[in-house]
């Protein structure tokens, strides 16, 4: 067993050097190259996890289902219906009949077991590369509380996704967004937080004041956002655990908005409008002096830090229309990076550092797109009446954004899309949703 794992590891490493085909076929090792743009989803079999204790039956069922939903939701995997199974996995410990799974063309097989003991939930799983006839990576066990069963399912799915794609996972993550109800001219907005897949929605504010554009702190425990609760846009910081919030002290007599955390979790940057002019400023979240990062008569807003904290990408209309610029994080000379037709806004630096996601307006349409930090390789991923506000999944491979539909009945909905432009899908929320911000992977 150990040897097989070792051999497989080498094979995976080797294929990493090739520009391998989208889905490993035949006897090749199990591998998906996400950047290639997968045409054919990889088929997997996931027999319902074994219930090791009498009271774990329902958990086993639900956990298996969430894992399958996570994997299918990526568009990279396809679940083989259990009705097609030849052999069943009666016990987590039983040897795998590879031929039976090969016969139904399952390339990956995921088995697991669930046990509940007191207030403790244990979830174990193993991943098999059917065509290589070997286990892929070691079996893993996660322990938590029964209420946390969804998170444990996401962790299993993250491990499977990670092993097969070679990318970091993103299922065990949360999204803070603005929940929206009512018509366009009387829209009620409140902050909400949910699991990445729309489960476990919790409201963080009431809808008595307009709230805009929440952003997670680097550890996912706090949220910065803009609220009109005083009648004027001001920046607030909210603790997700206690749901306590406080105003961040900025200059009186000004409007402040578009706040974002620096990777240090202490510094924030934001926009401040004074005398009709909007610039970008930085300060410590606990107060103190405010540093002005831009000084132009134009609009400078929507800042976003590079993952190493050394640079900021932002939007400015200093050229006459909204465009993207990059400057040192302490301010200074900015270089323009967007040059295509139309207007560019809401830049967000990828957590991998390699790309910036943005909103583009051109010829009456809105797009979510990505480009490199030098402005090259611009790629538009979506097109609609109004798409805006991208946020990155923790692995930098998926983007969530909001889409508002046209007209008097217009409604805002969250969507996600791969950076290849594939797998565009709505994220189900109880009400409308806008301005999503994706958390880092939970610890």
């Amino acid at each position, binding site marked *: 067993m150990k040897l097989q794992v070792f051999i497989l590891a080498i094979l995976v490493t080797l294929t990493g050097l090739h520009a391998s085909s989208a889905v490993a076929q035949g006897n090749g090792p199990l591998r998906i190259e996400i950047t290639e743009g997968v045409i054919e989803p990889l088929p997997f079999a996931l027999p319902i996890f074994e219930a090791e204790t009498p009271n774990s039956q329902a958990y086993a069922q639900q956990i298996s289902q969430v894992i399958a939903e996570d994997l299918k939701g990526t568009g990279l995997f396809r679940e083989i219906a259990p009705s097609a199974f030849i052999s069943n996995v009666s016990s987590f410990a039983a040897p795998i009949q590879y031929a039976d799974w090969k016969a139904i063309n399952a390339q990956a097989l995921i088995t697991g077991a669930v046990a509940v003991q007191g207030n403790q939930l244990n979830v174990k799983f193993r991943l098999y590369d059917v065509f290589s006839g070997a286990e892929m990576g070691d079996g893993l066990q996660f322990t938590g509380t029964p209420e946390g069963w969804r998170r444990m399912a996401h962790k299993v799915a993250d491990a499977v996704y990670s092993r097969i794609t070679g990318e970091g996972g993103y299922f065990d993550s949360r999204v803070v967004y603005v929940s929206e109800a009512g018509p366009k001219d009387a*829209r009620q907005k409140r902050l909400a937080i949910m699991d990445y897949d729309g489960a476990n929605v919790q409201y963080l504010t009431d809808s008595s004041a307009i709230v805009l554009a929440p952003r997670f702190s680097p550890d996912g425990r706090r949220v910065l956002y803009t609220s009109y609760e005083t009648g004027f846009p001001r920046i607030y910081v909210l603790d997700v655990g206690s749901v306590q919030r406080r105003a961040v002290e900025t200059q009186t007599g000004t409007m402040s908005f578009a706040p974002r955390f620096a990777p240090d979790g202490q510094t924030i940057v934001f926009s401040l*409008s004074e005398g009709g002019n909007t610039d970008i400023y930085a300060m410590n979240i606990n107060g103190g002096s405010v540093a002005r990062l831009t000084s132009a008569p134009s609009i400078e807003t929507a800042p976003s830090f590079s993952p190493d904290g050394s640079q900021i990408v932002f*939007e400015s209309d200093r050229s006459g229309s909204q465009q993207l610029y990059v400057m040192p994080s302490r301010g200074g000379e900015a270089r323009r990076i967007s040059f295509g037709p139309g207007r560019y806004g809401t830049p967000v630096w990828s957590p991998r550092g390699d790309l910036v996601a943005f909103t583009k307006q051109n010829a009456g349409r809105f797009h979510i797109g990505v480009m490199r930090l030098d402005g090259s390789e611009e790629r538009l991923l979506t097109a609609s009446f109004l798409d805006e506000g991208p946020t990155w999944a923790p692995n930098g491979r998926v983007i969530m954004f909001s889409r508002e539909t046209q007209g008097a009945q217009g409604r805002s909905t969250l969507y996600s899309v791969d950076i290849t432009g594939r797998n565009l899908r709505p994220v189900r929320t109880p009400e409308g949703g806008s301005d999503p911000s994706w958390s880092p992977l939970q610890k």
Partner: protein
Amino acid sequence: MKLTKHIFLLVAGLALAACTDAGRFGANGSGAGGAGAGGANGAIVPGSANDPTSTAYFNQTVGDRVLFAVDESTISETGRTTLEGQAQWLLANTDFTAVIEGHADEQGTREYNVALGARRANAVREYLISRGVAGNRLTTVSYGKERPLEICSNEACYAKNRRAVTVLAGGLSS
């Protein structure tokens, strides 16, 4: 802070009802003022639209708003006429202060539109100051694209949403 709350309520009321409630800041604030047109037989109903010192008069007769071209904050010719009237009125009715709300249509990203609304509100404020209104009577706020008046998704509605509205406050002491 209290003042701010009042302003906010008034703003909300205006957005929804397009300012038919003259009573709130009118003298006595009786239901009669709310009739708006009022003043039949030439009698001036305090607080109604034909009481030249009322907010209703300011909103309806002087005109409380100016409109802007796409992505612009330049005051148009029509806008200047309206603002001349606003300045005259504010100079004659010195008990009032005003919050100038800047708004944008939905065709823009959210935070940019907040900044654009701030520009529009400030353009109005600067104009009123240039006509002699004291700056400390004029506050600005931007709602970006968050509070459209019209909800269709074409230019007919967008044109009305790209606005700066001068919302009076502080007339209670008269």
